[in-house]
């Protein structure tokens, strides 16, 4: 049956901000769905609160709503747009939960909206632990012994019946928030309490622990005619007990015989049928007891997931795209396999390579949190690597993580590690366990012993042992012969050794190794990802490198070249690698736009990236895709084959920028802003000279390498100072310090992060307003597209700070000055492409804080707010166009009738024991956008988007540092006017009372003998609805930690600056005055009288 014609307009729900457990894989799935459904002629209404996504670009849907993903706002969109159907299975758990809410509150019925993909009963059956268990028992599946509990009494009773160890999982959460293992009653109480709290319906599942069992996942697709296929099987290297998002995983499964695999496959078919997923993709997880093969069903996601994005990239089978097509009535045999073009999508991919996914953690950002892994997901990104052997894929994945490892290497000396430590780090799953396997091998431990301690299957340990043995063989040979014979060198490359690893062994540098092996014709070859193991001719250009005989990329390029009448010029775009805090989806957004723009101009766009979650690694975005680590070696291998006419490094964040100078030295044609200018902006001294030359002002500063010099400069410029390493993104190891003692205690961290580069010291300007500017320049002319005023003070990383377009408090003449300064800096740096400048405004003075001649994190936000596709224009300019060829005018931006607020989303609830305080080091994982007619409305929406909706009534706790005490009076009065009760601790209460604010004084903690109420109890009883707490410079921080931690636990919005407090008050006023209004981007731009320019 072909597609349905009874539905015309479809609402697609996105997944909101990037959070741990829900990242840009849903931009990938949503973007695919938008493209596929529009191609089929459907009218698409899209709702997502995340401005950094590609799917929220106005050209991807007919009506794009950047609005809060709450039932109220979606209901308003439905009321306005009247879609026939909603597709909730492509926007992660957020979209699924949202659709469930809309069904339950009757909205879908009221407006006659059909749920596509999975209906209410299906989702309920799959997601509700109890229903799922019942369903599994009904079809005879083996499941762990377990019980459901809704309160502590029930939890304890269940624990006694089943027996420890136990695993606790809350229902209806994402990424396993609030779950964990319990070995005794005490642990159970702690974890169960958290679980009940974080579950949407206060439900937890307590079950028999299958810790250490082998873990598998199957990606399943079904159409409405009940045709079912398995797209991919995935085996986790980390056994049960580690969240699959935090596990190193391998595709396809490695250690299952066909018999066992078919049992699992049959089970998957039965499960998807029993749960009743009508159409689309699902993910089913299994555990297998390694002793006897007992197979247990763990869970099922009736939607596309992180794993399905991985499976799509691992096989070339676009699950999300097909899921969307199946949802509107196609069957699998009616859909063509894009890659082979002659076979249908109704088949199971056969792959002839090994895929390894490795998670990227950012525990270094949260030093108080332990890097221990469990059932709650902690990783913020991932990288995927493809190789012809597991060894090659593993080593590629490890260097692709960009965490300072160049493979399965020796970052530390194993002799410095005690046996106890190695044992313990192998036993308790943690972020660097894989490297402890290496240390254990170096200590001479047997593979059996390592497998027993770690419970990692011995198959994997043996493969790692082979890498280790080969390394030893090379070391020994080199020691004896001062040379590595060709066959050994080739074998090393086949085992995935990087040139850097070999250089370390051969006591030389990377370039020497590269030249040596090239001279011996040991060069990377490229193979195609084709879904069919070469059984059919493949047309889709998706490659990975390996060391084999035949190079299919060369064959394809030659064939293409012979077909062109005139050879096409090629431009290569380097992506951002795995997501991390400070470098995420925003940069992928820019890369994808660059690819689109270049293709439009007639270039061949070549994408290089290693992140399976992204849109950029979708094989139909660029003319050719290379799924490779972003290292010098791997990029140069591609350059050798492609010989591009230009390479773009300024869109992928810091990753490609870090490669820029070496690529430049190797003769690679980098287009856009020159490498020299990029370096100039990073070089403190040269940059200061430039600022002086332009007669601009920057905070007093200096740079140094040694501790003594750093301290000297700090004294010279005067405390407080901002200390940071150069060449890092996201403010890694960046801190404001108030005295020398603190400075010295911070030096170790900053030295490690700077890796020999100079450390930068700036005078910190207190209480200044920070302004972010994004502009495009063609080397002569510069167009300032976005001026964003931060809501938090300067000193909080711009990635963590909320900001507003247009700037609400900065005067016209200062804005004019900022624009002028931006243009002068851009011209002086000869910027070709994007530039981002951070200014601090204090009174009438403007300081230049930082200049980044590259795409910035705010580029997509500015594009969404103004309708100007910054990255697209910049890419075209880099490819040779001039600004004058685009009809850009600042007046058009000024004519926009709306206000846009960007707010960040923080991961603190994932890391227990970490203090929730913002500073110069970026901590947020994602961002949201609120758009409204007024500043207040936009701010209020942004807070709802960020899941910290401002209260409309109740009590506000106000406690501010001394400098803010006078200013907070007005805020408190406004709160009173809005009907809030104000609660304060002694100091603030005293000031407020003296200004006639009706305030209740409370103690911070339960102080026993005192009668008056205390804050902690109020927080626990949910009697506080908003916290305004500005921490004073350096002292008394510790005091407030538990308060902010409690705020997170109870999801109470917590504001830490006065500007934020003002924004909140405005926002609360706005919500009170206006009813919910929603408007699409397309409408906003229209109101701005066509301000969005066609490119």
């Amino acid at each position, binding site marked *: 049956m072909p597609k349905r014609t009874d539905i015309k307009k479809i609402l697609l729900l996105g997944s909101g901000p990037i959070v741990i457990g829900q990242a840009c894989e849903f931009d990938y799935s949503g973007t695919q769905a938008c493209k596929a459904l529009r191609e089929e002629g459907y009218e698409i209404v899209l709702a997502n609160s995340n401005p950094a996504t590609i799917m929220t670009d106005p050209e991807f849907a007919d009506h794009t709503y950047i609005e809060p993903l709450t039932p109220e706002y979606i209901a308003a969109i439905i009321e306005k747009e009247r879609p026939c159907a909603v597709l909730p299975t492509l926007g992660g758990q957020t979209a699924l939960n949202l659709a469930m809410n809309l069904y339950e509150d009757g909205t879908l019925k009221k407006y006659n909206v059909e749920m596509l993909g999975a209906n209410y009963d299906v989702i309920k059956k799959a997601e509700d632990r109890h229903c799922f268990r019942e369903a599994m028992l009904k079809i005879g599946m083996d499941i762990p012994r377990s019980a459901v509990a809704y309160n502590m009494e029930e939890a304890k009773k269940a624990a006694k019946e089943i027996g420890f160890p136990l695993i606790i999982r809350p229902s209806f959460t994402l990424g396993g928030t609030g779950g964990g293992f319990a070995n005794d009653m005490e642990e159970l109480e702690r974890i169960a309490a958290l679980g009940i709290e974080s579950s949407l319906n206060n439900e937890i599942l307590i079950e028999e622990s299958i810790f250490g069992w082998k873990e598998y996942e199957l990606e399943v697709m079904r159409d409405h005619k009940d045709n079912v296929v398995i797209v991919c099987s995935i085996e986790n290297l980390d056994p049960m007990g580690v969240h699959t998002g935090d596990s190193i995983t391998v595709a396809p499964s490695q250690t299952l015989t066909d018999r066992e695999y078919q049992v699992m496959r*049959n089970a998957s078919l039965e499960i998807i049928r029993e749960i009743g997923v009508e159409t689309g993709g699902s993910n089913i997880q299994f555990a297998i007891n390694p*002793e006897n093969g007992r197979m247990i069903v763990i869970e099922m996601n009736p939607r596309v997931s992180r794993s399905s994005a991985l499976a799509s990239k691992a096989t070339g089978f676009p699950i999300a795209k097909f899921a969307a097509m199946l949802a509107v009535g196609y069957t699998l045999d009616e859909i063509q396999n894009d890659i082979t073009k002659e076979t249908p999508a109704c*088949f199971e991919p*056969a792959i*002839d390579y090994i895929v390894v996914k490795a998670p990227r953690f950012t525990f270094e950002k949260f030093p108080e949190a332990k890097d221990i892994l469990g059932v709650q997901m902690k990783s913020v990104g991932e990288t995927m690597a493809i190789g012809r052997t597991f060894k090659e894929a593993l080593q590629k994945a490890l260097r692709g993580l960009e965490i300072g490892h160049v493979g399965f290497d020796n970052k530390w000396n194993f002799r410095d590690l005690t046996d106890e430590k190695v044992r313990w780090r192998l036993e308790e799953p943690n972020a660097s366990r894989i490297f402890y396997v290496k240390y254990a091998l170096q200590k001479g431990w047997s593979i059996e012993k390592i497998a027993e301690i770690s419970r990692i299957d011995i198959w994997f340990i043996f493969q790692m042992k082979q890498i280790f043995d080969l390394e030893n063989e090379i070391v020994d040979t080199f020691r004896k012969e001062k040379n590595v014979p060709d066959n050994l060198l080739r074998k090393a490359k086949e085992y995935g050794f990087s040139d850097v690893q070999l250089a370390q062994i051969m006591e030389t540098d990377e370039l020497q190794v590269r030249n040596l092996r090239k001279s011996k014709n040991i060069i990377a070859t490229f193979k195609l990802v084709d879904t069919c*193991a070469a059984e059919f001719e493949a047309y889709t250009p998706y490659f990975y490198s390996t060391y084999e*005989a035949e190079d299919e990329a060369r064959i394809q390029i030659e064939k293409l070249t012979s077909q062109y009448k005139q050879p096409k010029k090629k431009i290569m775009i380097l992506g951002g690698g795995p997501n991390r805090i400070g470098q995420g989806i925003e940069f992928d957004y820019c890369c994808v736009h660059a690819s689109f723009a270049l293709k439009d101009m007639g270039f061949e766009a070549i994408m290089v990236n290693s992140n399976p979650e992204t849109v950029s690694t979708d094989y139909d975005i660029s003319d050719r895709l290379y799924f490779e680590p972003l290292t010098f070696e791997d990029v140069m291998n591609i350059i050798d084959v492609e010989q591009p006419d230009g390479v773009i490094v300024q869109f992928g964040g810091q990753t490609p920028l870090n490669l820029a100078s070496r690529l430049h030295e190797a003769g690679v044609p980098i287009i856009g802003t020159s490498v020299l200018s990029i370096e100039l902006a990073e070089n403190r001294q040269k940059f200061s000279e430039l600022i002086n030359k332009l007669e601009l002002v920057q905070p007093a500063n200096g740079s140094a390498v040694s501790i003594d010099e750093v301290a000297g400069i700090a004294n010279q410029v005067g405390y407080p100072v901002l200390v940071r390493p150069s060449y890092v993104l996201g403010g890694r190891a960046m801190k404001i310090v108030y005295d020398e003692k603190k400075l010295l205690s911070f030096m170790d961290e900053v030295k490690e992060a700077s890796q020999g580069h100079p450390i930068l010291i700036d005078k910190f300007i207190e209480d200044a307003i920070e302004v972010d500017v994004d502009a495009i320049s063609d080397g002569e002319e510069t167009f300032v597209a976005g001026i964003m005023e931060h809501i938090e003070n300067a000193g909080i990383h711009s990635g963590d700070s909320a900001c507003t377009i247009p700037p609400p408090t900065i005067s016209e003449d200062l804005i004019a000055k900022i624009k002028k300064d931006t243009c002068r800096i851009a011209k002086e740096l000869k910027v070709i492409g994007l530039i981002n400048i951070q200014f601090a405004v204090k009174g009438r003075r403007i300081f230049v804080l930082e200049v980044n001649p590259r795409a910035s994190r705010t580029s997509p936000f500015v594009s969404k707010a103004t309708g100007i596709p910054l990255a697209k224009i910049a890419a075209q300019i880099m490819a040779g166009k001039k600004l004058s060829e685009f009809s850009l005018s600042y007046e058009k931006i000024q004519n926009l009738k709306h206000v846009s607020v960007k707010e960040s989303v923080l991961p603190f609830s994932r890391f227990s024991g970490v203090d929730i305080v913002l500073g110069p080091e970026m901590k947020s994982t994602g961002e949201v956008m609120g758009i409204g007619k007024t500043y207040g409305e936009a701010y209020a929406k942004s807070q709802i988007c960020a899941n910290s909706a401002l209260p409309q009534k109740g009590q506000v706790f106000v406690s501010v540092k001394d400098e803010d005490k006078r200013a907070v009076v007005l805020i408190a009065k406004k709160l009173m006017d809005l009907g809030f009760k104000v609660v304060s601790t002694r100091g603030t209460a005293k000031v407020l009372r003296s200004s006639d604010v009706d305030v209740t004084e409370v103690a911070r903690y339960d102080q026993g003998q005192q009668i008056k109420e205390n804050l902690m109890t109020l927080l626990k009883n949910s009697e506080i609805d908003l916290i305004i707490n500005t921490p004073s410079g350096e002292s008394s921080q510790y005091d407030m930690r538990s308060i902010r931690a409690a705020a997170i636990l109870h999801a109470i919005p917590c504001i830490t600056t006065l500007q934020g407090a003002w924004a909140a008050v405005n926002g609360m006023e706005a919500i009170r005055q206006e009813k919910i209004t929603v408007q699409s981007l397309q409408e906003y731009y229209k109101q701005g009288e066509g301000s969005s320019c066609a490119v």
Partner: protein
Amino acid sequence: MRKAILYLEDGTYFVGTSLSTQGTSAGEVVFNTAMSGYQEILTDPSYAGQIVTMTYPLIGNYGVNEEDVESNNVHVKGFVVKEFCRHHSNFRATQSLIDYLDEHNIIAIEGIDTRALTRQLRVKGAMRGLISTEEFDLDKLAAKMKDVPSMEGADWVKEVTTSKKYIWSNDDDDSKKKYKVAAIDCGIKFNILRILTKLGCEVHVFPAQASIDEIMSIKPDGVFVSNGPGDPSAVTYAVDTVRQCFGKLPVFGICLGHQIVGQALNGKTFKLKFGHHGANHPVQDLLDKRIGITSQNHGFCVDIESLNKDEVEMIDINLNDQTLEGLRHKKMPILSFQHHPEAAPGPHDAMYLFDYFIEMMESGRS
């Protein structure tokens, strides 16, 4: 570890190493795209006369065991892989694959670009080839190639069929059997026997050369024509026997058995370019339009056009290349399938087809 060479009849060659038996071996080189199930593939008699290359690069991961065999022998002429696993892991494993191959005197080559080889076979078609650990002179290899017989017209069935009749029994089953099946063994896979027995059949396995009288002597409820190696056109004796069964007994054929049924129905068979060998082929049941993912292993195919449309109907079709996957006679109880409903290795989606055979036998009684 010794140097080894895989030499193809078009002169292409790949140099790798060999861990198992030394020597020289010849056969038709085919590729199989299944990602698991190497033990089943090695022991499948249908591969007699063939050198099999696995497109999945890591082979031997889970070792070998006592149960996952499809016959009592390894039938491939040679085995080609990217990398053999030196340390397997599986709770059922009893032996490493390398030792197993050695024990069965199978020459295997590893360390070659199996994807390049596969592409070569896809473009040029299945070719004859030689694996050698002793001869590396290309001219001498080319000379040797002249003696290697072509698959077309070759009767490999006689090499693998049982020498005398026997009754199959499943280890875990001694229940009373409802149906008596005469199975013509052209290289029958154990899993077919296991399934039929489980479904209540007492399966009498006959040599492929068995006469109609021998078969009728056991008074069977139905005749099963098995899978097997080589060209169906060379197995004229089985075609004749099967033709004589038509109208007397329900007939059910799989793979080579299907081709034999096709020829017995006066259809023609032809050789596919590089065959279907894998576990991911979509097959549509034209009766209810459902699609199953099937296990396949055949180099020859029944020509749809050659069948008499008034008598025979096509009931299964391969969605990749639209070739015939299943047929049935409109008047007589004759049913056959090109793909492998018994799987082993591969998906079990088509296993329900055995029920049709049972139904035919059941209605044949009444």
